[in-house]
């Protein structure tokens, strides 16, 4: 089955052609030809995963100007797992889109773009060397742009798509540089860590750094996070497919694939872990201040990707991969459930307009609840706890500060997802007539949530089987923590506290959408007043800054004189030292 899997990226191309050419021709059935691709991908991937083995394709001299210009594809259990995830979520998103885009005139174009994305993502996963990886990488970037800016008549979608392209360009540049500087013949991903292949300029550290930059751009980590919240301008199904489950996971996949190379560059690994945990905490806080429903969930994706990066960075690639696996199902579940409410409210996405409307969509409410519980890591019942506890355990064992920070961050997770759930699904509705039900389009949307709910609950139990299957590829893997253990319970307790706090706060206050400490509650109540010593500190800071700012006078001659004097000093010092 592996040889078939190695060519599985072509599976959606016939659907792409047929849909683009207008088959089937009736408007209502637009896109039906594309529906066969992802399930086929899922079945082949599952069969390959169960059968095991691996298969490599190599056509030499395909791009002769690169150091490794062969076309290489590699089908092994790791790529089979990723392809199974892709097939699973893509199948459900395709069916969901039949309902979500039922009335959209551009539905045909939508399915064409979706097919393009699935093909490019499959090629990325199956890539055996940097050149083919780069093709898949840019392919998903382009289809992401096309899908984010899908609705051409709405303001802001094009600029959001361009932002995604900008971040993608940075990642593509880093990957292209990596593909160019490896020594000749050395581009295969599985051999990047061999001494022959790290002999290029900069050595293993530079190569690892380039891969890290590429992964960070794709997974919206660190300073390159900005495109993901804005990518919510696209339709909700693609937010679920691309920006939650698969494309943003490509960065994590790349780091897991090259984990042996990262082991050779401990400083880069530490940087990955630090950026991961910083992004996780920062994005969690940012989610609390979002007034747009989808952006709140998008920041959650950024934060969870930070957890995965932290897992890979501390040297536990399987933990990061496992979290990728479970996160795909519950994050897609959250997005698709949100999409049902948004669709029912006529496309409105802001929290103040959606307030309380969730209660009219029972499938969505149950789905979002299950997704939230999985996100905060409810042990036994949901899958999120298995993977998140694995990351936290590995982090505490290897880099304790990072581990405890991740553990503490779970309370923020509970807070932000509890806030979203409470405002949309629990609070009293702002306008009872704002929700429209359309049974025909809702049926596929509702039922496509069910497999995701099952996944969010059950996928955690597959952990040990996955570990056994992937052990030969990922080297030594630490044992997964048992389903119930003290640290896991502590994490869950923190998350539950956050969730409960948000529940209490947002269902009490009728108008509250944002938690904003320090704002006046009502007129007449005293505003927050700072103590005397606070203003003294502030004034001192201002004075220091003002005196230092005089150096920046803007006068060019002064700057030039400064640099020459500096140069002269350096030269003289050099002589003095010698």
């Amino acid at each position, binding site marked *: 089955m592996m040889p078939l899997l190695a060519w599985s990226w072509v599976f959606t191309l016939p659907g792409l052609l047929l849909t683009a050419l207008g088959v089937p021709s009736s408007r209502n059935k637009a896109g039906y030809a594309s529906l066969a691709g992802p399930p086929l991908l899922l079945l082949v991937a599952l069969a390959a995963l169960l059968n095991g083995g691996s298969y490599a394709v190599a056509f030499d001299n395909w791009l002769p100007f690169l150091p490794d210009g062969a076309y290489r594809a590699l089908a092994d259990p790791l790529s089979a797992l990723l392809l199974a995830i892709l097939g699973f979520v893509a199948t459900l998103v395709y069916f969901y889109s039949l309902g979500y885009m039922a009335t959209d005139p551009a539905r045909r174009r939508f399915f064409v773009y979706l097919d393009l994305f699935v093909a490019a993502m499959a090629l990325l996963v199956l890539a055996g060397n940097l050149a083919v990886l780069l093709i898949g990488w840019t392919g998903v970037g382009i289809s992401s742009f096309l899908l984010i800016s899908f609705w051409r008549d709405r303001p802001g979608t094009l600029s959001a798509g361009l932002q995604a392209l900008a971040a993608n360009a940075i990642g593509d540049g880093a990957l292209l*540089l990596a593909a160019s500087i490896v020594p000749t013949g050395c581009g295969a991903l599985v051999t990047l860590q061999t001494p022959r292949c790290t002999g290029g300029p900069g050595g293993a550290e530079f190569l690892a750094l380039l891969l890290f930059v590429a992964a960070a751009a794709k997974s919206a980590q660190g300073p390159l996070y900005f495109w993901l919240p804005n990518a919510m301008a696209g339709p909700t199904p693609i937010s679920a497919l691309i920006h939650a489950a698969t494309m943003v996971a490509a960065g994590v996949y790349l780091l897991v694939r090259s984990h042996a190379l990262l082991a050779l560059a401990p400083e880069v690994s530490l940087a990955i872990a630090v950026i991961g945990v910083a992004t996780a905490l920062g994005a969690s806080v940012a989610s609390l201040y979002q007034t747009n429903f989808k952006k709140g969930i998008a920041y959650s994706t950024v934060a969870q990707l930070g957890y995965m990066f932290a897992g890979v960075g501390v040297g536990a690639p399987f933990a990061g991969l496992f979290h990728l696996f479970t996160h795909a199902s519950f994050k897609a579940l959250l997005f698709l459930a949100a999409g049902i409410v948004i669709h029912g409210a006529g496309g409105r996405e802001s929290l103040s307009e959606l307030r309380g409307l969730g209660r009219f969509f029972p499938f969505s409410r149950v789905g979002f609840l299950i997704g939230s519980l999985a996100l905060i890591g409810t042990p036994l019942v949901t899958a999120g706890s298995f993977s998140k506890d694995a990351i936290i355990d590995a982090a505490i064992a290897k880099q304790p500060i990072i581990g405890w920070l991740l553990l503490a961050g779970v309370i923020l997770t509970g807070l932000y997802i509890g806030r979203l759930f409470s405002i949309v699904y629990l609070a009293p509705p702002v306008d009872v007539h704002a929700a429209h039900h359309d049974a025909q389009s809702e049926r596929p949307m509702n039922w496509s949530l069910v497999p995701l709910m099952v996944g969010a609950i059950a996928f955690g139990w597959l952990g040990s089987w996955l570990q056994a299957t992937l052990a030969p590829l990922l080297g030594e893997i630490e044992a997964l923590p048992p389903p119930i253990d003290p640290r896991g319970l502590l994490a869950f307790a923190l998350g539950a506290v956050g969730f409960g706090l948000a529940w209490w706060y947002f269902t009490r206050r009728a108008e509250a959408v944002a938690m904003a400490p320090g704002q006046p509650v009502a007129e007449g109540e005293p505003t927050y007043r700072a103590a005397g010593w606070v203003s003294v500190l502030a004034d001192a800071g201002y004075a220091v800054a003002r005196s230092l700012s005089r150096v920046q006078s803007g006068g060019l001659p002064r700057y030039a004189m400064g640099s*020459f004097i500096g140069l002269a000093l350096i*030269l003289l010092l050099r*002589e003095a030292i010698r």
Partner: protein
Amino acid sequence: MGPLFLPLAVGCAVAIASALGVVVARRPVYAALFLLVHSLSLAALFGILSVAIVAVGQIVIYSGAIVVLFLFVVTLLPSGGRELAAGSGRILAACVAAGVVIVALAAGEAAASLPAPEPAPDAALGVAAVGHALFGSLLVAFELTAPLLLVAIVGAVVIWRRHEPTPRTAAPTRVSEPRRLVIHR
């Protein structure tokens, strides 16, 4: 003192003299012409040192393009290049800085020992060898010069268009595109 010393000495003297001319010249046209002599003298020095392709590059790119560009700008200057006189403080500071730099570099070179140069065979510095270097170990730098030049061109155009004078005619002519990207159906 090798056999190249005399030609090198002549070239260096011309280079320094013309550089002084650039700095000291009263009219900017004279300064630009001195710059031309300076760059040609450097091309001569490069030629004496047997780096053929850099010498030709210096003539074609530097003298032929950059200095000519300077000449164009100087001749298009509306004010003829008059400039405000520099105060004595600036001249003093400049001399001090220059003196310090010379002293520091001289001290450094006195202490450094240069390896005895073997007369490099022309093949080692020839065009083919440079080609191998540019497409081999210097590949990244070489490729990056392309976006560098693109950025320079785009930057120059952007800087110029930002400072276009507003048209004073009653009917405004469209001199520039609106800056925001608006897609119309």
